[in-house]
């Protein structure tokens, strides 16, 4: 079953930058996909299309069969709840504690308090930040903030998990732990899409690799490796 389908998607930002050109892609339910490419290639833009942070300038994007470019704006939140996102710049709420930041994703779907509590503590355990639950984001190191962002993305068991360079601020050991988490989630049926610069990871855990360069998909291999020509 196709969970994500992009047809002829292009994106030109309001300042005239052409970030994506004629992207066609199919992603099946349960896949694990790396998105790689040089800095500024369009990886984040590609990813932002999926949860509709940005709308494409042309083309259509289907998630689970329905075209999200035509989605009424009041239905957008319900789309986003099905998709967990680890943002490249974390996007933590600065005045909420680590706990509250993660709980927020469960509050919006109106889970009862005791379930929120249980789930948040579970994911805090996974990212090894239980001891910092009451801290504000500003009181965390870069890598810790990144892990909070990961925790928030996975806390409500999304159908699709999108991670934009989720290991950029993590040491290798922690990166491997995060990868294990993503694989576990993937094994439970969640589709995972991960933009990354980490050659070691891509070449070790072999999965489908989509290579974007200058806004175009230049390669798409099922068990690919990290490599592209400039």
């Amino acid at each position: 079953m196709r969970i994500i389908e992009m047809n002829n998607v292009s994106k030109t930002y309001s300042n005239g930058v052409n970030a994506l050109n004629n992207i066609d892609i199919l992603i099946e339910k349960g896949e694990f996909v790396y998105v790689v490419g040089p800095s500024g290639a369009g990886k984040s833009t590609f990813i932002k299309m999926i949860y509709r942070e940005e709308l494409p300038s042309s083309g259509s994007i289907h998630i689970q069969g329905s075209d999200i470019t035509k989605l009424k704006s009041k239905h957008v939140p319900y789309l986003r709840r099905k998709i967990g996102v680890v943002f490249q710049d974390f996007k933590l709420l600065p005045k909420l504690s680590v706990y509250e930041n993660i709980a927020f994703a469960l509050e919006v779907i109106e889970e009862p308090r005791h379930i929120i509590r249980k789930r948040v503590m579970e994911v805090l355990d996974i990212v090894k930040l239980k001891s910092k639950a009451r801290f504000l984001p500003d009181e965390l190191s870069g890598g810790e903030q990144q892990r909070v962002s990961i925790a928030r993305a996975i806390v409500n068991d999304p159908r699709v998990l999108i991670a934009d360079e989720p290991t950029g601020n993590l040491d290798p050991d922690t990166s491997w732990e995060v990868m294990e988490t993503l694989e576990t989630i993937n094994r439970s049926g969640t589709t995972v899409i991960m933009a990354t610069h980490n050659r070691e990871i891509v070449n070790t855990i072999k999965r489908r690799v989509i290579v974007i360069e200058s806004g175009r998909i230049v390669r798409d291999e099922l068990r690919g490796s990290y490599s592209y020509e400039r």
Partner: protein
Amino acid sequence: MKGRTLVRHGKEGLKNIGRNGWMSFASISAVTVMLMVVGVFLLLILNLNHFLESVEEDVEVRVYIDLTATEQEQEELRNDLEQLDHVESITYLSKDEGLDQLIDSLGEDNREVFESLRDENPLNDAFILRATDPQLTEQVALQAEELNDIDRVDYGKQVVDQLFKVTNVMRTMGIVLVLGLMFTAMFLISNTIKLTIVARQKEIQIMKLVGATNGFIRWPFFIEGILLGVIGSIIPLALVTGGYYYVYNNYASRLSLDFAELLPASPLSLQVSLILLAIGVFVGVWGSLTSVRKFLKV
């Protein structure tokens, strides 16, 4: 929306005031200061209006009775006057009482000069009419002039016209000023609240990206707006109420002139307080909701 979510929004709205410490303080103090100004001016203008009204109340029409009129004719005249439109009350003023009043109005020092007139009083007996609305005095006077057994009708046309010109200008200015101040207050309070919310633009956008609906985001802001308005109203309310009671109790007699006094504190401060509270809450909610809306389009 589930009940627990409503509780969550309430708590969140309350917590946000603390989380945005300095900003909340700025909003609250804007509410406080502006409501204080509005409150003081409301009290002043209402008292001014009361004062003007009591000045206008003094306006009366004197219908001097013809010297030749019999008791019977006087009685008929009184009946005719009672039939006129807009007449509130009729009082009889004999020519001796009239002279007393006239001499009194001249002040201590000229009194003796005119005492001589007592023996050969040149005045007429008169009926004194008050119009239901002082501004209708002229109309009443014109009607009265048509009746029989009348020597002349006098309501001090020039003075009264001048007086009404003045009171009407003052009343209009007062209303314009208070309305102007109210709108200024509303504008500035919501302006301030908007600024604190613009600073939270990024947060609102993040919430949306994490799957919050517009309603979910707006609720705590709604609660926060109410709270800002209510908290900001506390001091103005206390001052308007307490301060006015104080002034009324301590200075009312000193400030009051022979013909005017302060409005009694009891219903007035409550009314003004309610107006202030209403403005505070309305502007708090309105200011926060309108500015949140701008950032919900993510």
